[in-house]
């Protein structure tokens, strides 16, 4: 399915949808769960594969963008979807009830960006150690000093 047709189909169901760079869809956060159900179940789209799940930090706009890639093996099209979240308290629904892979990829995004996935069975760090402080891929993450600061004995 061509991109323009996909945009028109999705816009007819979810009017808040926008297109970005002529290849991405931007979905409103409140519509997201219904949108995933629609893109997965509707016979025209039938995107049965969650191919990409990641995020990107936009410090000037104070946003974190969730990026999802949906692949349809039947119709051979690929839809890249973005959802804009508030940077202070990023939270979005978990896709683990539909896809098994979402378990690990959402843990990775939680680990590196601190996005809370509501409904995830075990949201814990996956790449960094469990006692790691902070979220490494955020733009304002500061690496702790290599040497431990000596106590002041005055």
């Amino acid at each position, binding site marked *: 399915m061509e991109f323009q047709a996909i945009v028109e189909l999705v816009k007819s169901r979810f009017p808040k949808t926008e297109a970005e*760079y002529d290849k991405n869809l931007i979905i409103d956060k409140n519509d997201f769960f219904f949108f995933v159900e629609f893109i997965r179940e509707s016979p025209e789209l039938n995107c*049965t594969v969650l191919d*990409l799940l*990641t995020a990107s930090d936009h410090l000037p706009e104070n946003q974190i963008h969730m990026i999802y890639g949906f692949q349809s093996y039947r119709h*051979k099209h690929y839809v890249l979807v973005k959802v804009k979240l508030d940077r202070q308290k990023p939270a979005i629904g978990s896709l683990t009830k539909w896809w098994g892979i979402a378990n690990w990829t959402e843990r990775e995004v939680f680990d590196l960006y601190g996005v809370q996935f509501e409904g995830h069975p075990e949201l814990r760090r996956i790449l960094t150690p469990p006692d790691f402080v902070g979220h490494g*891929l955020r733009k304002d993450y500061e690496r702790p000093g290599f040497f431990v600061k000596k106590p002041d004995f005055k």
Partner: protein
Amino acid sequence: MSEQLTHSASKKAFRKDIPLIDQIPPRKKHILRGLPESELHVEEFLMNIGPQHPSTHGVLRLVVSMEGEVVKSCEPDLGYLHRTFEKISENRTYQQIVPFTDRMDYLGSMNANWGVAAAVEKLASIEVPERAEYIRVIVAELNRIASHLMWMGAFAADIGALTGFVYGFREREMILDMFEEICGSRLTYGYIRVGGVAEDVTPKFIQMVNDFLKILPDRVTDYHDLITGNVIFIERTRGIGAITLDEAISYDITGPMLRACGLPWDLRKEEPYSLYSKFDFNIPAYFNGDCYDRFRVRMDEIMEAAKIVRQALDGLPEGDYKVKKLARNIKPPVGDVYIRQEAPRGEYGVYMESDGSIKPNRVKYRTPSFTNLSILPLAARGWKIADLIAILGSVDIVLGDVDR
């Protein structure tokens, strides 16, 4: 115990009145527990495999909960090789990113380089000369052959056939010699760069590839005789760790593991990038989704990749091998790009976001090893501990690719 020994030793064993073996009363069971058999209960126990263990192919830790010898659950513990390549890439210029990708998938470095180079070229609208694309196809397919041969050896060693390891390295060595000829390095190439390749191919390289393609079919036939038809190998792999196509789709399995489940999905055929629409090759696929089918898919892919190398070598045009004038610091327009390519292990994707400066705002490597490994807890459940090693080997993970 010592009394019994001395007592039996005092008897003369050759005398006729010593009882025969079948007349010896059966040994008491469960002496160590000291419990009658009715009160025995089976209890799960945890076993730790790795992170330093030869059969984990790197630094992977598995926490296996077992009941006897049967795996009840298996929890991979990742992150021992996490080197924050995505963060590093955000702080480098676009050309500087390329060498880091060697260190992620160090058995398919050419393919890893290619993904980033293609993403930057699409983002900045850089036209690549045709000769460079041909060279890219040749080295990427050669690297696929090397990766699969290496995997074949390592998988045979996992099963217990240590000799296979040496056989796999024999032809891989020839390919590494070719790469050494064109880029001077044997493991981390950095050969495919933004705007083309680093150096032009030499006549000696072409001669080496021709020699290699001549001997490869015989060698692969040897491997089929040695391994594919081997009864012990078949017993250890057929039906082991089988996953269905639905499970594979749910866990986003790609590459040879997906094709072993019955779906002949290959990005080189389905969404042809670069020059792959010009070449004639087949996509091998099998239906059982077990370790044996994964092995057969990869062995068939070696021959298909050799076919592509042959065609690309015959059609190699004259011309430039890289873009003549390329800015020192590329500044792509604001936008994003997602490139997907078929790496030896599966679908390799690079998501890149530009904010108009000389550094990318976000680089995401969607690596096949990470997603393919995520099905291990499901695939290993209910199999024995020796099968767990076979299943883990058949996934074909590279831990640098998993942890990034």
